[in-house]
């Protein structure tokens, strides 16, 4: 059935995307993953913007950059976004070395991974919506 298929799809997406998060979802909070994903989605977008701004300003405030990135790394790791987290780690190393060039390059990577993740999340959310509509 369409509904089943969609649900299955959602479930498998969830599993592939967030192994831990899925465990957290249960009857008492059926939309937990969705909530978290939405939250992360918005929050990370904001953080990326902040980082971008900080990178564009001169002189670059590495402290602030590090702070932002630290936060970003924390939330993406909590949600289980491994690739993004790894890029964040690389970025922070450049940041500590105050290597502006390195930071900028690394940030591009971060953005890229984040963009990929965002797309996946969007698809996930969309599927969830569809599934709930058919349900």
């Amino acid at each position, binding site marked *: 059935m369409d509904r089943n298929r969609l649900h299955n799809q959602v479930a498998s997406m969830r599993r592939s995307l967030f192994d*831990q998060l899925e465990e957290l979802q249960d009857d008492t909070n059926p939309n*937990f993953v969705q909530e978290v994903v939405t939250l992360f989605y918005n929050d990370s977008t904001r953080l990326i913007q902040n980082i971008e701004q900080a990178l564009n300003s001169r002189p670059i405030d590495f402290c602030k950059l590090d702070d932002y990135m630290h936060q970003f790394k924390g939330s993406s790791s*909590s949600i*289980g976004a491994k690739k993004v987290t790894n890029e964040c780690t690389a970025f922070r190393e450049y940041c500590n070395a105050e290597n502006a060039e390195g930071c900028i390059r690394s940030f591009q990577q971060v953005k890229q991974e984040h963009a990929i993740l965002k797309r996946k999340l969007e698809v996930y959310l969309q599927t969830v919506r569809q599934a709930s509509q058919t349900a």
Partner: protein
Amino acid sequence: MKNSSGGKGSMSTASSITTWKAGDVVPVPDQFPAGLRVLVVDDDPTCLIILEKMLRNCSYDVTKCNRAETALLKLRENRNGFDIVISDVHMPDMDGFKLLEHIGLEMDLPVIMMSADDGKDVVMKGVTHGACDYLIKPVRIEALKNIWQHVVRKRKNEWKDLEQSGSVEEGDRQPKQSEDADYSSSVNEGNWKSSKKRKDDEDETEDRDDTSTLKKPRVVWSVELHQQFVAAVNQLGIDKAVPKKILELMNVPGLTRENVASHLQKYRLYLRRLSGVSPHSCNPNNSFMNPQDETFGPLSSVHGLDLQTLTATGQLPAQCLATLQAAVLGRSTAKSSIPMPLVNQRNIFSFENPKLRFGEGQQQHVNNNNKQVNLLHGIPTTMESKQLTSLRRTSQSIGNVSMQVAPHGAQSSQNNSSLIEMGQPLSRVQILNDSTVPLSVGQPIVPNGIAANVSTRNGIPENIRAPGYNLVSQTSSILNFPMNHASELPVDSFSLRSTPGMSDHTSKGAFHEDFNSEIKGSGGFLPTYDVFNDYQYKSQNWELQNAGMILEDSQHSNSLQGNLDLAQSVLVQQGFPSGQINGQNRSVPIVSKAMFSAGDSTEPGNLLNVNHHLNTIRAENTVRVKSGSVADGNPSNLFADHFGQEDLMIALLKQQQGIAPAENEFDFDGYSLDNIPV
């Protein structure tokens, strides 16, 4: 987990044991660890919500906050409402470690730190600050499943402590209780106790009742209790402060040596941390501290001279001068007998004021004072620090003096009281707040608060926060200062100056005078609690009012102490808006108060704090003039004039901006002692 298996169950003494936290809502033992009350703090919303969910899945009772201040508020509102706290390290409004300290000192709850940062240094920091565990993000649910072990472990240790000391000490303590009155009066701590709000005391009392059978494993270190603790520590000298003696001094029924020992450990950690902040050697004041040589009357002049010299050199913040004066006056002879234990310990202040030395031979006191000054630790090296040091010094000396003074007679007490009352040190407070040196008027509260404040100075609301804790210890010694003598003068100038760095000019106004008057009126000095004071002392008025309140009582050194406590408590109670004590003197009032009450306690350190406070408050205030009134120690006089806190604040702010003290009556450099009403 069954209670029996965990620490919880160890109490086996009676069915009531499960409720080992007095007043706590104890979850059914058998369900443990289900129902564990967790407070999780993290500014990242994603992490926060995930953690909350995970904790809920572990059957814990979760409360989440995204700001450290909110968390502290919640914890304070409901002291026994949580079993464990999980906090992020990086937070925008307050450093996670700072929060950790607060919680450790105030509530003695186990705290788990967490961060995406897994660097060894950060983890080590967690250890040194007393975190019971450190989790690395992303946090897995498995890691959270076991956090109950920290709660159990802590309780078990407390319980054990209780048992060990309980049966023996309980018995010993019981009879002591009856002697409390006598004992406490001698110790002055009793005064505090009596004068202080009894809220927390009552709680302890209740616990006491149960002690015979089951000692409460967990002691809630209320502001007052902590103040007592700090006072005791100051009295003994941080080096010599052993739990047993502290316990005796505090004379709180139901409190065990172990409780004190663990609290002392935390306190030491805190101090150590503070000392690393700003060991300024501010105070040339130290030299003044020696006032001992002089008698009261002449002291002011004498000291004034010294102070003047010092101030002239600019080393001595006016405030210090004031304090010194006060101290001197108070002392009149005693050579810093004040147990500056606080100061010594503190090193933070390490004022090495070589300058002070030149002042007089008082050095000895000065040294002591210096040490005491340390109480102020954390005093920013900025002017404030100078002031602080001076404050400290003075406070020390003052404390010493007061000690001396006390014996001298009412006069001194008056001074003290006035000084204490002066608590105004709003400006000081600010400084204190920043410098964390809470004018521990007599109450050991201080240094923490003040010192903490110092560093943060900017209206660190946080600093002030620590309720009385911080202040308590240090200030007490300081406060003792001069309240006794009516030597107004140093006070005014002193106070203003001393306002920790905050505003050199704030010390305007004869510190002493201010003290006296202020102390009385200031009612609230010492906001410096800062770190520990939750109460952001914003309310200057409040302080003033309190000061007034305090003054009344503070006729005696004892009362001073009580007043201070009162003031403090009041201040604290006021629950100043967390705001921010920003440089506002506000905090000072509390501090000063505390300091003053300490009048008896020789803890000079406190005086400094107080002075600082006072000074800060005073800066603009014309209190100085009060000298006359000061003598009377009439709070009313003081208040009437008391410098508007705004004034003080302005003064402080000005000072902070590096404005030449000239504005102060006491010109910093010129320390015109003339102003000091001798």
